[in-house]
Structures are given as structure tokens and as C-alpha cells.
């Protein structure tokens, strides 16, 4: 048994209690919450029945159903054990994990990495140069390259805290939330349309996207973020009293992000479709928050993990009462009152006219002109009314929810025994204890949210810190971020994963503190150069052989830009980025014959979609030069430019983007009208800044696109290209424009460089 310690700060008695409970009894998951939401959740176990009557976890109780289904080997799943702290960490240091500067924190990260490297006989790499560091940090935290001025000022800042200052500036930037929201939107399979045959636009979905951006920018505690998405409606009573309450309602958009086939009822396929919806919600919840694969135990018990088929349906049962709503009023209570008053005044204004009209007979000749006049006036008055803002989200249909049955072999037409909402049986096989917060809702999702967003839950904090780690190193400590089961990867550094998880919880589930700890570590700041030029003393071939995939992190990883970051970088370096930071999605131009891939779009074009918004609603080009997170994500028609660079499907949770390298990407980035346009805008910008001197043009271009000056050889071949291409364009008749077009060609080349596409 490990020593109890350490990470539970004395002032947070709850954590300490939890730790003691864990270390002494291995009893998990009694579902009580630990932080926040105190108005709704108390700190005491709510189970009124004596503990003895409840079944225990599979470790201690032979009657636990999981123990009965599987043999004991299933219980060896690493992620099932609560995070523990290795003995190599001393109490004193780690009692200060919340140090804002992150110093002690980073020492711990580095020490845990170093321990494994030492065991393997590998030394870590030197710190990357400052130009590399600012590019890496800017892309990682904001998804955008540094401007030439930002890069220069950082490189020239010789103060000891220059790096930490940069970290703070980037974490404070609104661009941070846009970048990290995009990561979360992958996990929750966000899209702006319904999918299937009609693939209708969801006019309010973007509010959820903006909510996620706000949440990251506010550094909303992750446990709160979980509760809001799963049960925000159960946390708010009546119209929202402030922006935070409105956000809780918007957050329930999470429950609506799956696909929806509005044609299912036409063919009486509602029952099957409801089965799909609930399965999707359960599977996505499991993947996103727990790293568990509930899709694998829908038809039978899990093939690898200690999850039963009943567990899948117990999880589903939490969602049985979910009712989709597009009319969640998010106008604040005060404003709502004002709107009510205003509308009452409008009604008052209309009342005498209405009364007069009611006495007239519209079919009588003498009454008709006045009647019509009144109708017109009344219609005008009516337009003065204001309607409250609404959100797309969900509530329960009432205090009761339909029964949930296990389906024989997963077949919805063969329901078997009924199950009640319950957590993962291996830890707690009993029905969940549920206390509805109000009379009009079941309280089921709140109970689930509290169980997930608990420091007792062995998966929640680990999955999150692993996701964050993944986006800082290209790969997580667990390579399969949505699968912490037997078929997933094992943690490459379990002590570090656990240490991060515990520190994260102790730091109030703060994601920004987690970033700070990771990016301030020496591990993060290492060079990615496998050849290790400049350090001299290492035998890189030997390391490359010992740990070719860099599991142990003896260097940083070279990472390819993802689809959105590539496009955003093109916008950014060419100076054409529209700074819109919220609101309705924008629809870029897509070639018409590609739109024809989806017949539903054609139907909309002919006005045949009955107002269902099945179409593609192209915006003027200037309005589409926004960051890619603000572009419309239509399920039946992903934006081709983004899709070429491994945009994930929006059907299931995406744990990690593919980064494939295929020829169509080259065609897209080298030849597409989008790319050529960016190259030309960049050329104009460079010409404007650098003047007519070719050498200073090359210099300016490199600084904008690559945050560095060209070396002598690069400068020479670039100048050579400018000369040759100027001649060529002149020859082709572009007399006045020849130099600009040559510069465009050079810009086009630079935007296609590996150095532009990959982060060192």
C-alpha cells in the first residue's frame, strides 16, 4: 500500500477524507460531490439506507455482478484504481502544487519524466531556442502563430521571467478559448446540422460553441463544466438570474449534439431512432468524460473491460427523461421581466384598436376599409414586441422518466429486464441515489454529473489531464484518450498521469493551472530535434533506437498543424483574419458540384425544403475569413479545405485527430483557389511592408510566415525565384504586376513548406 499523503491539502478536508477512505477501504463512488454547486449538492452521502444493505464494489463483495460475470483479471484494469502518488515524491514539495509560478510543479513533472529516462539510460534534450518556443507556445495555447513583433520581443526579452510572462499573456488571450474549445468540440462531436437525409441547420447550436469558448477563457473549473453540460437545467430554477445561469442552460446543448433524423417518424422508425439517440448519449458521455467504451457493451457484456451490458443501459437510464428543447429561455430574469412589461405595454396600445375591430364585420362593405386599416396598424404594433433569446438544449420531461430496459443482443425490439440509473457496477452496482432538485425534473443527470465530477471518480481527472497533455505533446500519456480500458494503450508514465490528476483536482479543477504546470516544465521546453544538433554530447542514434517513438519524452515531438490551425495560420500570416469571436456560423464558398454530393442541399436550393434549412448558405468572402471554429460544420458536407487535412467525423467522439500525409492535401494547399488567394494577399501585405527591395521582401515574408530570417542560402534561392518568376510573368504579359506575382509565387511556396505545416 502506498503511503497516504500529500496531495490533499489540509485546508481541503474533503479531499483528505476521500483519500483516507480510498487508502483504507478501496470503497469508491458513493456519488457525493465535493466542490461547487453547494446550493444543490451537500457533502453527505445521501443514501439513507444502511451501508450494509448496499452491495459493495467488485473488489470487496463477491456478490457484485461484475465479479460474477468476469473472473478477477478484469479487476486489474489500471484505470480502475484511484490515482495514487508514487513514493518518489516527497510531501513537502508537493504540498505546494498550487504555486502560481508553477515552479515546484514543473520540477515534479520533470522529475517523473527524468526517472524513466534515467532507467532507460537516456538523457533529456536541451531547451529549444526562443523562436521555437514562442511558435510552439503560441500554436499550442492559441492555435495561431506569433506575429513578427511578438516573436521579436520575446526573443529579445532577456528577463528571467520572459517565458512565464509569455505563458500568462497567451493564457489570457481570448484566442486561447477559441483554440481549446475546438479540442473539446471534437470530443463532443459538435456540428451545426442534424445529419441524415435532410441535415437541417441548427440555428442555435453556435451558442453551445460560444459557451465552450467562454468556459475555457474563464478557466471554468472542469467539474463545473461537466455538471453544466450534463445537467445545467437541473442546476437552474426558473429563468436565469445571471449570465452564469444562462450559460448552464446553454450548456445542455451537449445533450443535443448527436445526429437527429427528422424523417424517422415518417417511416415509423422513432423507436429505433430513440434507441440510437440514447446509445449515442451514453457512449459519448463514457468516451468524453470517463475514457470508457460503452459502445462495446451495448449488445453483450464488454469483451475486455469490467463493464456489463447492464452497465450500458444503467448509464442510458440517466438520460431516459431527456427532452430536446429549442425554447430554453436564456434571457436573464430582469430582462425577461422588462420584455414582459414592454410587451404588455404593446398589448395595451393595441387593446382599444382590437376592441374597435371586434365590433366591425369585415365582410360588410361599410366596415371593410376601417377593418383592414386596423389590421394593418395592429400588425405594425405587434412587431414592436420583443421575444426573449432562446437556446438549444434539453430538460427532463418531468419528474418521471420512461423505463429503461436492457435490450437482448442490443436489439431495441427485444426489451428484457428493466434497469434503474446506476454507475459503473464494478465500483457501485446499486441503483444510483437520486434526489430531484425540483418537482419538474428527475434529478438523474445531476446525480450522474456529480458522480463523474467527483474527486473519487478514478477516470474523470485522468482523462482530462491526458487530453491536455496530448495537445501539448502530440500524444497523450495514454495514447488512446477515449479508451482507458484493456484494449486501449497503457499510460507511458502512470505516476505522472496520477500526479497530474491529483494536482489538477487539488487545484480546483483549473485547466489553466494545468497548462501552466505543463508548459513551464523543462520537458515541454525541450528541443524536438532528434538529431540534437548543438548539444554535442549525446548519441542520438542510440536514443532513436532505444525509444524511437519518444514515449519517454527525451525530446519534444514535431507536430503537424490540424485543419483549422492550418487555415487560421494562412489567415493570420496574410493579415486577413477577421476578428469575429462569437455568433452565428459562417458559410464559406464550396464548389457547386461538391454541394451536389448531398441531394438535400439541392432540395433547399429549389425552395423545396419547406423552410427546414437543408441548404448551404454561402456568406460574402470577407465574412468568412474568420477563425475556422466559427465556420459552419455541416454533417453532410464538411468544408473541403478542412476535410482534406483530417477533419474528424462528427458522428462519434474524436479522441485525437489523424495527421495523415496524402497527395490530395498537396493539391489542396498548392493549387486550390483558397490557397492561391492567401498567397496573393500575403504578397500584397509583404510588398506593402517591405517596399520594392527583393531582399527585404524575402526577409519580411520569412518573419511573417516562419518567425525567423532566412539564412544566406535560403535568401539566395528565394531571390533567384523572384528574378526568374518576374521574367516569366513579364513574358506572359503581366507587365505591371510581374513583381507582385513573382512574390505571390514565393509566398505560395513558403505557405506550402513543411516548416509552415509542422511545429517543432
Amino acid at each position: 500500500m502506498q503511503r497516504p499523503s500529500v496531495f490533499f491539502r489540509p485546508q481541503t478536508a474533503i479531499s483528505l477524507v476521500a483519500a483516507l477512505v480510498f487508502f483504507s477501504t478501496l470503497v469508491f463512488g458513493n456519488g457525493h460531490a465535493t466542490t461547487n454547486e453547494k446550493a444543490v449538492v451537500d457533502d453527505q452521502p445521501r443514501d439513507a439506507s444502511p451501508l450494509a444493505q448496499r452491495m459493495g464494489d467488485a473488489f470487496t463483495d463477491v456478490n457484485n455482478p461484475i465479479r460474477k460475470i468476469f473472473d478477477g483479471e478484469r479487476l486489474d484494469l489500471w484505470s480502475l484504481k484511484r490515482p495514487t502518488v508514487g513514493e518518489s515524491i516527497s510531501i513537502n514539495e508537493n504540498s505546494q502544487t498550487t504555486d502560481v509560478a508553477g515552479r515546484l510543479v514543473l520540477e515534479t513533472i520533470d522529475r517523473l519524466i527524468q526517472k524513466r529516462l534515467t532507467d532507460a539510460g537516456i538523457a533529456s534534450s536541451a531547451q529549444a531556442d526562443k523562436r521555437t518556443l514562442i511558435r510552439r507556445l503560441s500554436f499550442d495555447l492559441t492555435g495561431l502563430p506569433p506575429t513578427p513583433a511578438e516573436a521579436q520581443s520575446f526573443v529579445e526579452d532577456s528577463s528571467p521571467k520572459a517565458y512565464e510572462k509569455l505563458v500568462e499573456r497567451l493564457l489570457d488571450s481570448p484566442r486561447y478559448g477559441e483554440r481549446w474549445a475546438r479540442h473539446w468540440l471534437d470530443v463532443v462531436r459538435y456540428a451545426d446540422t442534424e445529419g441524415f437525409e435532410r441535415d437541417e441547420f441548427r440555428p442555435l447550436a453556435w451558442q453551445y460553441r460560444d459557451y465552450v469558448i467562454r468556459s475555457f477563457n474563464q478557466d471554468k473549473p472542469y467539474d463545473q463544466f461537466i455538471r453544466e453540460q450534463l445537467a445545467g437545467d437541473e442546476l437552474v430554477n426558473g429563468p436565469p438570474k445571471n449570465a452564469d445561469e444562462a450559460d448552464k442552460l446553454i450548456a445542455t446543448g451537449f445533450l443535443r449534439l448527436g445526429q437527429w433524423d427528422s424523417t424517422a417518424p415518417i417511416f415509423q422508425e422513432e423507436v429505433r431512432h430513440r434507441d440510437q439517440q440514447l446509445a449515442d448519449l451514453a457512449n459519448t458521455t463514457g468516451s468524453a468524460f470517463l475514457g470508457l467504451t460503452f459502445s462495446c457493451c451495448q449488445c453483450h457484456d464488454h469483451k475486455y473491460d469490467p463493464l456489463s451490458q447492464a452497465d450500458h443501459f444503467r448509464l442510458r437510464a440517466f438520460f431516459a427523461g431527456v427532452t430536446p428543447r429549442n425554447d430554453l429561455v436564456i434571457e436573464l430574469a430582469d430582462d425577461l421581466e422588462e420584455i414582459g412589461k414592454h410587451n404588455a405595454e404593446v398589448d395595451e396600445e393595441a387593446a382599444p384598436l382590437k376592441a374597435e375591430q371586434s365590433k366591425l364585420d369585415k365582410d360588410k362593405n361599410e366596415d371593410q376599409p376601417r377593418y383592414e386599416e386596423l389590421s394593418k396598424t395592429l400588425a405594425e404594433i405587434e412587431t414592436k414586441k420583443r421575444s426573449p433569446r432562446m437556446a438549444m438544449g434539453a430538460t427532463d420531461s418531468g419528474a418521471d422518466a420512461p423505463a429503461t430496459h436492457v435490450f437482448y443482443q442490443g436489439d431495441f425490439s427485444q426489451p428484457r429486464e428493466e434497469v434503474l440509473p446506476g454507475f459503473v457496477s464494478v465500483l457501485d452496482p446499486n441503483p444510483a441515489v437520486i434526489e430531484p432538485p425540483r418537482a419538474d425534473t428527475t434529478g438523474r443527470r445531476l446525480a450522474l454529473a456529480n458522480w463523474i465530477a467527483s474527486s473519487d471518480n478514478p477516470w474523470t481527472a485522468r482523462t482530462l489531464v491526458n487530453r491536455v497533455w496530448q495537445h501539448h505533446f502530440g500524444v497523450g500519456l495514454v495514447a488512446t484518450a477515449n479508451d482507458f480500458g484493456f484494449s486501449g494503450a497503457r499510460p507511458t508514465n502512470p505516476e505522472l498521469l496520477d500526479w497530474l490528476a491529483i494536482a489538477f483536482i487539488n487545484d480546483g479543477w483549473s485547466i489553466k493551472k494545468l497548462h501552466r504546470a505543463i508548459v513551464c516544465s523543462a520537458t515541454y521546453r525541450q528541443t524536438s530535434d532528434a538529431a540534437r544538433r548543438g548539444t554535442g554530447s549525446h548519441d542520438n542514434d542510440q536514443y532513436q533506437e532505444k525509444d524511437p517513438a519518444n514515449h519517454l519524452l527525451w525530446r519534444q515531438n514535431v507536430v503537424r498543424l490540424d485543419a483549422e490551425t492550418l487555415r487560421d495560420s494562412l489567415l493570420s500570416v496574410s493579415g486577413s483574419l477577421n476578428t469575429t469571436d462569437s455568433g452565428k456560423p459562417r458559410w464559406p464558398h464550396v464548389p457547386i458540384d461538391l454541394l451536389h454530393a448531398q441531394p438535400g442541399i439541392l432540395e433547399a436550393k429549389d425552395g423545396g425544403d419547406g423552410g427546414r434549412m437543408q441548404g448551404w448558405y454561402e456568406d460574402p468572402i470577407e465574412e468568412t475569413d474568420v477563425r475556422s471554429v466559427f465556420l459552419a460544420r455541416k454533417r453532410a458536407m464538411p468544408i473541403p479545405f478542412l476535410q482534406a487535412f483530417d477533419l474528424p467525423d462528427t458522428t462519434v467522439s474524436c479522441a485525437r485527430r489523424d495527421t495523415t500525409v496524402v497527395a490530395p492535401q498537396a493539391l489542396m494547399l498548392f493549387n486550390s483557389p483558397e490557397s492561391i488567394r492567401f498567397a496573393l494577399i500575403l504578397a500584397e501585405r509583404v510588398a506593402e511592408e517591405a517596399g520594392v527591395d527583393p531582399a527585404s521582401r524575402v526577409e519580411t515574408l520569412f518573419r511573417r510566415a516562419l518567425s525567423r530570417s532566412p539564412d544566406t542560402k535560403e535568401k539566395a534561392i528565394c531571390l533567384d525565384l523572384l528574378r526568374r518568376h518576374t521574367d516569366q510573368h513579364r513574358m506572359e504579359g503581366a507587365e505591371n504586376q510581374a513583381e507582385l506575382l513573382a512574390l505571390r509565387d514565393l509566398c505560395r511556396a513558403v505557405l506550402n513548406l513543411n516548416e509552415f505545416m509542422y511545429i517543432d
Partner: protein
Amino acid sequence: MPLDYINRRDFLQRSGGGFGSVALAALLADEVRAASPQQTTIDPLNPLVERLSHVTPKAKQVIFLFQYGGPSTFDLIDYKPELIKLNGQPVPESFKQHNDKVGGVLNHCKDELMSGPWNWSQHGESGLWFSDLLPHTAQHADELCLVRSMYSDSSNHAPATYLMNTGSILSGKPSMGSWVTYGLGSLNQNLPGYVLLYKVGGLGGSANWSNGFLPAAFQGTQFRYEGAPALNLEPPANLAGVQRSTLDLVQQLNRKHAVQRSGVLDLDGRIASYELAYRMQSEAIDVGELAQETEQTQNAYGLNDENKNKALFGRMCLLSRRLIEKGVRFVQLYNAVDKLGWDGHDNNTDYHQRNAAQTDQPIAALLSDLKQRGLLDTTLVVWAGEFGRTPMMQGNNGRNHNPYGFTIWMAGGGAKSGQAIGATDEIGLRAVDQPQPVKNLHATILTALGLMPDDLFFETNGRQERLTGVAQSWKTIPGVLG
């Protein structure tokens, strides 16, 4: 050394603390070995390189003629004399008492059977029946292998279209063309391995040719039926003269960059991908040069027909032959030229006359052309929609979707020709003799290509995913592959 799959991910998974536990290894042993020794190995620098099949193949390439909207196959190739006899009669009670698993198709129909207005005749030595909607296809009677007992799991376009293309009624799974190119690579490295031809795609959009969770190299690439054959093959015209020179600078700087980062495989891969893209430009443009074909060939495909829609579909059929000739592994065509396709809810006769007129001659020409060039033996041609249509009348002259029983056909590529397998009931409503789920069709196609359906898998999200679903849950359609 080829990496197991692409871009380090599985590589990391496997070689790092991956399957460490002895207990787990024991746990997996039976299932994994029973299914397959290992996942298909992909060289990330050359993902389309030709790979060996699991067993000796009968077919090397596939042309999938997707029939969007749900063709009424008993108006085309499934002769139902009883239906003709019962025209105008109520549906016999025995057909109403049925516990159909898929949603209520019958509710939207009248209680009245409707036969089509077409004449039927037998063709070839096989004596297969064709309605006079398909006079040209009928001439290939002895080359067709009909399966008259298909059924689908949804009566709704998008789910049923997804099912026919990807094996799942939900979007997001890899399509058959992606699975096949993942399993076998392609025969030509300068063209995509999986090509789409459509004017109008299938409902549900590009998810129907998605690579799903498979690497992007296996995604379907659209070839255009007119103009430049593929999007972004060439830069805008005024950049043509500087194309190679610009590319040379990219590659020169990229090589310099890569040398400083030895061991990062993707950087070399990306350099190679730009050269491949450059080669694709000329090769793909060449495929699109239909003017290279004789006038006789062009006419046979209907390229000069006054029916513009026939001419358009003819271009797609001719392009598909040229792509097959070039070694593209999997070509899929969508028949529709508008959003209607075969979906004759309101006027079945009209829809079927129109679609048959557009597609019959070009498809027949494709079969003749492939045969004449010796390509039919190794090219499996598949004709299938997402479902069929009801024998009951909808509206005044319409038919509703019918997932319970419909016909598809195959030709070439080892399919035993001149025969019909399975049957629907007397009125064409439900498959009754050897009913075949869509996964059996997929299994049959994979098997023809020498791929063992259970051995063609990809591990994702904790599962081994396959086109044909759970291992051993499928059967090849008996009699197709002889």
C-alpha cells in the same frame, strides 16, 4: 520498415506499455486468433501500394453502380406475374400479417396492388426476365448474377444508403471502397485508389464515401464528369507556367528542413506526397480525355445522345472504364442527375422510365466494353440501390420505399453469371427464399476480391471494426462465387 498503420499512433500504442499484461494477452488470444492474426499493415509513405489479398481473388477491381432513391426492381428485373394478375386488387390478408422489424412502410400505401405498365420477356440462354425498360441491359442477361432476396435494415433513405455503402445505418463508418483500398491498396500509385463519379450523390452526402476512422488515403475522391477531372488538380491558368519551378523551391527547402529532423517520417512523406500530386496532375488529366475514344465507343455510351442526362451518365460510365483500365481499385457511380433518382413516390412510372432511359444504354455499353477489353473477368460490377419499392400503390401512381425485399445484380469478377438467386414472395413485397442482409452482399464482394471479411479489420475506440460487423455474423451469398 513499414509501420503498422500510419502516423505513429498505433505504433505508439503497440510498442509502448501497450499490451503489457499477460492476463490480457491470454484474454485476447482466442478471439483475436480466431478472427485474424493481425491488422492490415500500411506503409504511411505509400499507403496505396498494392497489398496481397488473404486468399486468391476472383476479382481485382470493382465498379459499383449505385442506384439512388430505391429502384422498383420488380418493374425492372424481377418478374412477378402474380403481381400483374392482382393489379388493382387489395393486398391479400396473408401479406398484412407480418411482424416486420423495420418501420411501417405499409401505412403510407393504399390497400391496392399496382403492377407496372411494362412488358416482360426472357433473354439469353439463361432466360432471365427483363421488363422493356431495360432493353440494353437485357442483352447481357447471360453475364448477370441477380440476387432477388436482398433486404435492408431501414426504410429511410439516409440510413439505408449508409448501410449499403458502409455497412451501418449510422454515418461515420468507412465505406466499402475505403475498406477495399485499405485492404488491397491500388494498382496505380498515381491516381486515387477509390474514385467517385456523381452529378448528385446519395442522401446523407459525403459520409457515403467517407474513410471513417481509416486513414485519409482511403477516402473516396470525386472525379468530375466534365471539365478538369478532379478538384485542384491544376492551379489557376495563370500559374501553369511557374508550377514546376515553385514546387522545386518548396521541395528544396523541405529537404533542407527534413535533414535537420531525421527520424520524423511524416516530413519525408510530405515531400513524397508533393511529387505524387504532381504526377497525378498529368495522369488524371489523361484519364479525363474522353476525346481519345473512338466515335463508335462514344456513341455506344450515349455521349452524343440527345438525352443530355443519358449522355452525362454515359460519360461517367466511360470514365469509370478508363479509371479501371488505369488500375484504380474501386470506382463508384451515382445514377441520379437530379435529387429525385428512382424515388417514385408520386409517379412511379415516370421516374422509372426516366431513370431507365438514362442508365440502361450506358451500363450495357460499359459491360460490353469491359468484356471486349478483357477487363470484365477481373472487374466486379455491382448494381444496387438502398432498397426497393412497394408493390402497393402510394398516391395515385406511386410506390413507397420497401426494405423487405429487392433485387441487385453483379457481373464479371468471378460472379457466376446467367442466374438468379433467392426470391421475394409472389407480389414482390418480402424476401422469402434465401433472404440476404446487406452485410452478406458486402461479404460476397470482399470475398470475390480475396479478402476474408473477418480478417479485414481496424482497431478503433477499443473495438475491432469491420465492414461486415461482428465476426462470423455474415455469410457470402450462396451461389454467387460458384
